C-alpha cells in the first residue's frame, strides 16, 4: 500500500480516456462503478472541452456483483454502439472491474459488432495514467495501421506525423499549432497528428510520411518505435527551448534535404536577446529545482542552464518509465535525480535544497507557495490555469518566448533585488513582500510550516540538539537578509559552523561563512 494525499498521475484508464477523447470516431466503454464518472469533469471543467468525453461507464453496483456484471457490460456495449456509431470501440476495465475479471475484450468481440474492437489491459494496480495513454495509443495504432509497407504518395513537399498530443495535455493544443507552423516554414507538411484530432482512418495513413516528431515520448514513444521499425521512419525529439528548436530545424533539414538557416536566422525568438540583455544579469546562477514528467523536466533543466544561465541544483521526475534518461541528465548537472511519485518526498527535497526558483507541476506550485518560493509550472498534472485563453505553446521559438516570460516573471527583478539588499531595514521591505509586480500571489510571510502538511510532516525537528546555537546579534543580522535567501544563508552558516567548530554562531561566523561559500 502506498499512502497518498495527492498523486501526479491518475489511474491508467484516465490515460486511455485522454487518448479516446482526443480522437475522433472512437468510443470507450469502461467497465466501472458509478463513481468513476468523476473523470468526465477533468475534461469538461479543467480543460473546458465543449463535449463530454466519448466514454460509457457500465455502472455496475453491489447488487450486480453476485449475478451478472458481464451481462451488464454486453448491454452497455450494444447500446453504446447503437447510440454513438463509432468507427472503433475501445473496451477496458477500471481498477474495480479488473478484480471481477469479466474479460471485457472477449465479451465485446463476441458481440460481432461491425467495427474494430480494441481491448486494453490497463493493469490498474501497477500502472498509471501516462502508461495507460501510451498503451492505448499503441493498441489503437496497431489495430488501425496495416503493418505492410505503404507506398509513399508522390508529392512536392516532405511530410511528417506529430505524435503524442492528447486531450487534457499540458499545452498540447498550442504545441501542435506551433510545431506545425515551424514545419511549414521548413517546407514540411504535417501528415497526421495523433492521437489529438485523428480518426481511426487517419491512423491507417501513418506509414505515408517521411518521419515522426515524438512530441510527448511518455505517450508516443512505443508507437514511434514501432513506426520506425515498420516503415523506416526516423524519429525526431520535440523542439523545446531555443537550442532544442534550432537542433530540430537542422535535423528536419537534414532529413528532407532542405536548409534551415533562413528559418533559424529569421526567427522572432526574443529569448536569446532578452537573456543577453544586461537586465538579465541577475538571473546568473539562480538556483533552480526542476520536477515534472521526464521529457519536460529534462528539457527545462537544459533550457534553464544553457539559455537562462540558471544553475540546476535538483532534477527529478514522477515518470518512472523514463528514470534512466532523467538520471543521465541529472548526472550531467552533478546532482542526483529524484525519481518518485510521492509528493511528500518532493516537498522534503525542496525544503532541504531551498532553491531560488522551482520549475515543477501544480503540485510543486503548492509546495513552493507553502515554502514561500517562486515557482513556474512546466508540466502536467494540469489545472484549469494550464489552459490559458491566450496562445501559449511550450515548443518552438514562440514556446521559448513563453518559457522566458513564465520563468522570469515569478522572480525578483534585478534592481528590486539590489534595493532589498541595500535597504533591508526599510519597513516596507518586510518579509511578507514578494516581487512587487506579483500582487496578491506574493508568497506568504510565514509559510505554513511543512509540519502542517498532511502526512507530510517530516518528523518534527527533534534532532535540533546538534543544531549550532546562534547569538542574538547574529540572529538579528540573519533576519535582515531577504527572506527568499535567508533559509539558505542559515543552513550554509550552520554547516560552516559545524564543519569548523565555530559555535555559537556570532556575527563573525556569519560573515566568515558568507565569504567561505562565495569563494
Amino acid at each position, binding site marked *: 500500500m502506498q499512502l497518498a494525499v495527492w498523486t501526479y498521475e491518475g*489511474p491508467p484508464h484516465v490515460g486511455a480516456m485522454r487518448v479516446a477523447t482526443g480522437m475522433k470516431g472512437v468510443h470507450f466503454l469502461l467497465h466501472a462503478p*458509478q463513481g468513476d464518472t*468523476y473523470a468526465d469533469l477533468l475534461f469538461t471543467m479543467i480543460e473546458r472541452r465543449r463535449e463530454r468525453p466519448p466514454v460509457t*461507464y457500465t455502472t455496475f453496483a453491489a447488487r450486480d456483483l453476485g449475478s451478472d456484471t458481464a451481462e451488464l457490460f454486453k448491454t*452497455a456495449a450494444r447500446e453504446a454502439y447503437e447510440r454513438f456509431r463509432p468507427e472503433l470501440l475501445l473496451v477496458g476495465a477500471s*481498477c474495480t472491474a479488473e478484480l471481477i475479471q469479466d474479460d471485457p475484450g472477449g465479451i465485446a468481440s463476441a458481440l460481432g459488432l461491425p467495427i474494430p474492437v480494441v481491448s486494453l489491459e490497463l493493469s490498474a*494496480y501497477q500502472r498509471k495514467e501516462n502508461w495507460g495513454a501510451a498503451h492505448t495509443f499503441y493498441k489503437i495504432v496497431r489495430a488501425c495501421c496495416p503493418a505492410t509497407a505503404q507506398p509513399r504518395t508522390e508529392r512536392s513537399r516532405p511530410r511528417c506525423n506529430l505524435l503524442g498530443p492528447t486531450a487534457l495535455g499540458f499545452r498540447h493544443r498550442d504545441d501542435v499549432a506551433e510545431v506545425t507552423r515551424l514545419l511549414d516554414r521548413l517546407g514540411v507538411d504535417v501528415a497526421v497528428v495523433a492521437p489529438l484530432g485523428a480518426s481511426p482512418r487517419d491512423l491507417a495513413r501513418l506509414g505515408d510520411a517521411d518521419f515522426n516528431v515524438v512530441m510527448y515520448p511518455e505517450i508516443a514513444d512505443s508507437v514511434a518505435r514501432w513506426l520506425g521499425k515498420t516503415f523506416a521512419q526516423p524519429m525526431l525529439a520535440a523542439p523545446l527551448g531555443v537550442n532544442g528548436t534550432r537542433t530540430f530545424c537542422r535535423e528536419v533539414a537534414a532529413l528532407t534535404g532542405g536548409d534551415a538557416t533562413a528559418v533559424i536566422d529569421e526567427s522572432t525568438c526574443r529569448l536569446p536577446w532578452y537573456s543577453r540583455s544586461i537586465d538579465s544579469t541577475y538571473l546568473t546562477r539562480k538556483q533552480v529545482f526542476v520536477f515534472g514528467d521526464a521529457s519536460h523536466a529534462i528539457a527545462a533543466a537544459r533550457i534553464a542552464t544553457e539559455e537562462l544561465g540558471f544553475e540546476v541544483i535538483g532534477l527529478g521526475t514522477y515518470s518512472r518509465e523514463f528514470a534512466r534518461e532523467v538520471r543521465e541528465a541529472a548526472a550531467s548537472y552533478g546532482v542526483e535525480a529524484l525519481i518518485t511519485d510521492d509528493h511528500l518526498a518532493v516537498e522534503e527535497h525542496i525544503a532541504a535544497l531551498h532553491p531560488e526558483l522551482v520549475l515543477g507541476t501544480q503540485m510543486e506550485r503548492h509546495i513552493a507557495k507553502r515554502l514561500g518560493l517562486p515557482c513556474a509550472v512546466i508540466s502536467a498534472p494540469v489545472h484549469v490555469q494550464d489552459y490559458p485563453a491566450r496562445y501559449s505553446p511550450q515548443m518552438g521559438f514562440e514556446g521559448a518566448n513563453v518559457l522566458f516570460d513564465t520563468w522570469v516573471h515569478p522572480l525578483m527583478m534585478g534592481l528590486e533585488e539590489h534595493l532589498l539588499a541595500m535597504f533591508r531595514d526599510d519597513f516596507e521591505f518586510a518579509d511578507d513582500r514578494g516581487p512587487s509586480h506579483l500582487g496578491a500571489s506574493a508568497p506568504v510571510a510565514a509559510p505554513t510550516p511543512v509540519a502542517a502538511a498532511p502526512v507530510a510532516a517530516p518528523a518534527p525537528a527533534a534532532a535540533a540538539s546538534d543544531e549550532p546555537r546562534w547569538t542574538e546579534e547574529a540572529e538579528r543580522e540573519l533576519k535582515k537578509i531577504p527572506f527568499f535567501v535567508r533559509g539558505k544563508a542559515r543552513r550554509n552558516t550552520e554547516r560552516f559552523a559545524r564543519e569548523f567548530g565555530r559555535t555559537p554562531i556570532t556575527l563573525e561566523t556569519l560573515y566568515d561563512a558568507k565569504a567561505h561559500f562565495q569563494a
Partner: protein
Amino acid sequence: MPDHVAPARTIPDALPVLRERGQHEVFCGLTGIMWLHRKIQDAFFLVIGSRTCAHLLQSAAGVMIFAEPRFATAILEEGDLAGLADAHDEIDRVVTRLLARRPEIRTLFLVGSCPSEVIKLDLSRAAERLSKSHGPAVRFVSYSGSGLETTFTQGEDACLASLLRGVSPAPSTAPTSLLVVGTLADPVEDGFRRTFDALGIPVHFFPPRRAWDLPEVGPGTAYLLAQPYLAETGSALDRLGARRLPAPFPFGAEGTRGWLAAAAQAFGVSAARFEEVVGPAERRAQAALAKIREGLAGKRVFLFPDSQLEIPLARFLHRELGMELLEVGTPYLQREHLAAELAMLPSSVVLSEGQDVERQLDRCRAARPDLVVCGLGLANPLEVEGITTKWSIELVFTPVHGFEHAADLANLFSRPLLRRARLKV
C-alpha cells in the same frame, strides 16, 4: 398550536416515479470526505482504495483548498491483492505511520472503496484490531464510501451511521433534547443553535465538530434531519430509541418554518413565542426571495440526480420561486424521510430515481428547459448546446439552509440565468 404545524400531507405514493438503470453520472460516497474532514476536526479519513479513489478525491477537491487535508488514500498495489493477511498488515503499517505523523488525530475512519469491498477486505475487523493496539487514545471506525453501494451524499450517511454503531442508548430517564442530524456549514449551525436557544429547546448537532463529543441518544431524543440523504443514520437513531420529527427540510422560508415548527411542536413551544422568534427572520427571507423570484418565476427547470437534495430543492423552486418543474431526478428516493416534501410537489412533476444518463439527456434536450441543475461532467457540454445550467455540487458546498441563507440558495439558481442575459459575447 395549528399555526406552526408542518403542512398537511397527501399520499405521496400517488406520484409516479420513473426508475432507470444505465450509466449513472454521479460521484461515489467517498466524495463526502470533502466536507466531513472539515466538519469533524479531530478526525482523519483513510480511504483503503485504488489510484482511482485517490484521483477522485483529488479531482473533486480540485475546486477546494490544497492546504493540509485530513484525508489520504492507502493505494492498494499488486502485492496487496495477493493475500488478505498481508493487506491487513499493510493497513497496520500505514496507520502506524500516519498516527506517528499526525498525533492530534482522535478518530480515524477507515473508509472502504469498491476495490476493498470486492476483495472482501474486512475493515471493521481492522478497526477492532487497531482499537486494541492504538486505543483508547484513538478510536477507529469503519464505513464504506464505495461506488458499488453509495452515491455521493450517501457517503456521509454511511459515515454518520458508523459513528452511532456501538453507541448504547441513553437511559429513558435522560432529559428530552433535540438532535439535529446532518452536516451543516458552521455559520448555518451557529444560526440554528441561536434559534433553538431562543425557542428554549435544548439542542445538539450531529456530526459534532469533535468526533468524541457524541451526544447521548436514547428514548428521550427527538431528532430532526437537516439533510435528506440520511436513511441509514435515521434507522440507527431509531434503533437507539430516538424519535424522528417528520418535517420538510430547512430550504427556503417555507421549509425552514416547517422544520422549526416540527421541533417547536414537539417541545411544546407556544405559538406566540414561535412567531416572536421565527417571524422576523422569516419575513426577512421572504422579502429577499420576492426580489429573486422575479427572475425565476415561470422558468422551467430540469434537475439531474446528484445529492438527494433535488426533491426539497424542487419544492422550494416551485413553491417559493414560482418555477415550473420538468423532471426531478434523485439517485435514491427515501419516501419516509421525504414524505412532507413529496406532499408539497405538484402532481404534474416527473420524478425519476436512478439514472440512464443518455436517455435522461434526450428527455432534457426535448424538454428545452430554461435551467438544468446537473453535475460537473454535464454542465459545460449542455451550455455549449445553449442550455443554461447550475452545477449541483455547489449546493452541497455552500451554506444554503435556513432563513438567512434562503436568498443565497435562490441566487445560486438565478445567477446563471442572469449571467447569460448579461453576456454580449
